[in-house]
């Protein structure tokens, strides 16, 4: 390595020496000094959160020896005086626009652009008027997102309301969820505990929240069947949430005296420390049924294989697609992605919750239709570029905000 570096250094010396020698000879007569831009305009970026101004300039026809543009700004203070010039950006000569960000959204600014070359800079060209980066009421570029959210929510709410009005809501069988009652019953018969793991993430992960909602149903069934349910958690907040949930379920099942808070315990935040505990516990206590419902990473297979070796019935659910193969391979039942998200609604059996599942389906139907339309347009656009289809595809992407 030393060799390479010293060679490089030697080359650099040679280059410098050469430059020094040539300098008087080859001060090329062809290269004129950099020419300043013809005009500079600055405009507030519309429909944004404020603080950004877009600056554009028209370069002169003959750029001279210019290689970069130097864009500067000057803030006009409350007393009306202009502040010092501060660099906004140095951009390549091919560019003619840039955006100044992080500006105050109350103060006006002047801008100027200078062409810079190896042999000096041009005189600066100033923007004709000062500009303020206004903060707008609504972030315009998020309008497509806003409408997408509105559409999805409308689908779900529409079907919830329809269900309330008594429209029958049919939902297909989900084998994994039908198996829950049996699995809990099995634990009661065998006199062994049920193990419920709500993933290893904290309450700011929606999968953990979904896992806790499933725990609400499972623990209610467990309370009714008089089975013991153990919930080791890897986060203190999840322990708190699980305790609230299970306690309320026991209360709802009419057996508040059977609730034991110590069965829901915090182990450790450390992923594999938690797994070490749970797998040791499994081998020793031999739970009859294991539930894994939440966000899982690598530990999924350690848990599922240990559970398998002790002959437990295992029901898993996660939206973590990288872990699905392991649950599919080692568990008796697995809720794949969206099925897991639907579990709580399905288990509740309440019409309005079932209605929300139908709303999800409507969302999928819309996505499918969009995909088909998009694919057809893209195909035509590929066959005849630049035609109507290309424009339509662009419009569709625009509506969707990407």
């Amino acid at each position, binding site marked *: 390595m030393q060799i390479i570096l010293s060679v490089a250094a030697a080359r650099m010396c040679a280059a410098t020496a050469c430059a020094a020698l040539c300098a008087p000879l080859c001060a090329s007569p062809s290269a004129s000094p950099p020419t300043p831009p013809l005009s500079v305009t600055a405009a507030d970026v519309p429909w944004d959160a404020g603080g950004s101004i877009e600056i554009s300039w028209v370069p002169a026809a003959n750029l001279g020896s210019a290689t970069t543009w130097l864009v500067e700004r000057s803030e006009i203070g409350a007393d009306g005086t202009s502040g010092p010039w501060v660099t906004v950006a140095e951009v390549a000569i091919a560019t003619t626009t840039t955006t100044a960000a992080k500006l105050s959204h109350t103060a006006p600014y002047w801008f100027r652009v200078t062409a810079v070359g190896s042999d000096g800079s041009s005189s600066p060209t100033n923007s004709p008027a000062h500009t303020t980066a206004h903060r707008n009421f609504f972030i315009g570029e998020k309008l*497509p*997102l806003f409408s*997408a*959210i509105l559409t*999805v929510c409308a689908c779900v709410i529409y079907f919830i309301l329809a269900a309330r009005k008594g429209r029958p809501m*049919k*939902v*297909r069988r*989900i084998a994994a969820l039908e198996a829950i009652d049996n699995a809990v019953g099995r634990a009661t018969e065998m006199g062994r505990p049920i193990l419920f793991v709500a993933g290893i993430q904290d*309450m*700011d*992960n*929606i999968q953990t*929240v979904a896992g806790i909602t499933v725990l609400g149903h499972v623990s209610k069934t467990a309370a009714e069947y008089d089975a013991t349910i153990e919930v080791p958690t890897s986060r203190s*907040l999840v322990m*708190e949430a699980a305790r*609230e949930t299970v306690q309320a379920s026991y209360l709802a099942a009419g057996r508040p005296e059977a609730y034991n808070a110590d069965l829901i315990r915090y*182990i*450790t*935040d*450390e992923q594999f*420390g938690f797994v*070490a*505990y749970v*797998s*040791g516990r499994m*081998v020793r206590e031999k739970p009859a049924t294991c539930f894994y419902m939440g966000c899982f990473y690598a530990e999924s297979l350690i848990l599922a294989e240990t559970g398998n070796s002790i002959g437990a019935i295992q029901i898993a659910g996660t939206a973590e*697609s*990288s872990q*699905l*193969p*392991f649950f*599919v391979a080692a568990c008796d039942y697995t809720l*794949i*992605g*969206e*099925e897991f998200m*639907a579990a709580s609604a*399905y288990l509740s059996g309440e019409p309005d919750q079932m209605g929300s*599942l*139908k709303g999800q*389906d409507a969302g*999928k139907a819309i*996505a*499918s239709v*969009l*995909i*088909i339309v*998009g*694919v057809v*347009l*893209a*195909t035509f656009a*590929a*066959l005849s570029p630049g035609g109507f289809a290309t424009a339509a595809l662009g419009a*569709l*992407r625009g509506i*969707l*905000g*990407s």
Partner: protein
Amino acid sequence: MSGPTRTWAIIIAVIIVLLGVRMSIGGGMGRAYSQRLEQKAEVPANSQTNTPARTITWTEWHAVQPKIYFAAQRADPQQTQVAFSWSDTIGLWIGAFFTLAVFSFLYRDNAGYRLAEAVIIGVSAAYWGVIGFWDTLMPKLFGALVPSFVQAHVMPSLPNPSTATVIAMTFALVLGVLLLMRLAPKGGWISLWPMAFIIGVTAGLKIVSHIEGDLVAQTVATFKPLISPQRIEGVVEIWPTVWASLANTLVVVGVLCCLTYFFFSVDHKGVVGRAARTGIMYLMITFGAAFGFTVMGRVALLAARIEFLFDDWLWLIDPAGKRTIEVAASAVSMLCWW
């Protein structure tokens, strides 16, 4: 003793004997060394506390590879710059013990594993508690509520908090205190309030992020032409076009079929049933691929642990040149003995 049990007993005995032999043939193993580093820092005078400028010195010991120790010893047997490190050597042996203890769980649950389990629960829970204190509570909470204290004692270059930060952190403190009401003899129910806040906020935030980042983006990404002419210098090439078009078609069909599988309100019969079944096939291929890739990673992890045992602890191999000559001797003598 049944047949398999006897076989296992023999295997374990062989491993123990081999370890014993390795320990007795010498050539060194499981030792760690560290190098002395004298540190010096200038403390400027402080007019507020009336302390003059002074220089503070202290000694640090940094772990080094054994070859550095060997070289130093060869050069000067009396040197004290690089020395045998008791703490790191003990640590190395403890680490090796825990590694073997966890591996022994594969055979069956035993006292060694239970010890490792008990240790890791205690250590790691506390570890994350300490991290939470120094990395979250100190800079964020205390840094916002009592910035001058934090700057004066712990983090001198912590920037002053903005008003918004102070408000947010006060709010966080209130939530935390409400949560701790759980420990109070009465009023434990109030701890459901901060929980409700967290769950509500999570739900609200995730709708936005999932629809923005996943739903819309992935839908748009599927807008692929079913016939995708591949041109080289303006001329359409037949085979690349066929392959690219086939790939696009398979992706589009796959996405639609898999989505069909997830439909809840339609029974999987007839056309829907066939599409859903195709969807399941796609999912199975997806899962198979993920499985195959994961195996790679897991084997690398196991290899790293075994390298730790063979290299750092037993000094059987020296692929990274940590010890150079000395180790070759021990490995060869081991092989000869074998």
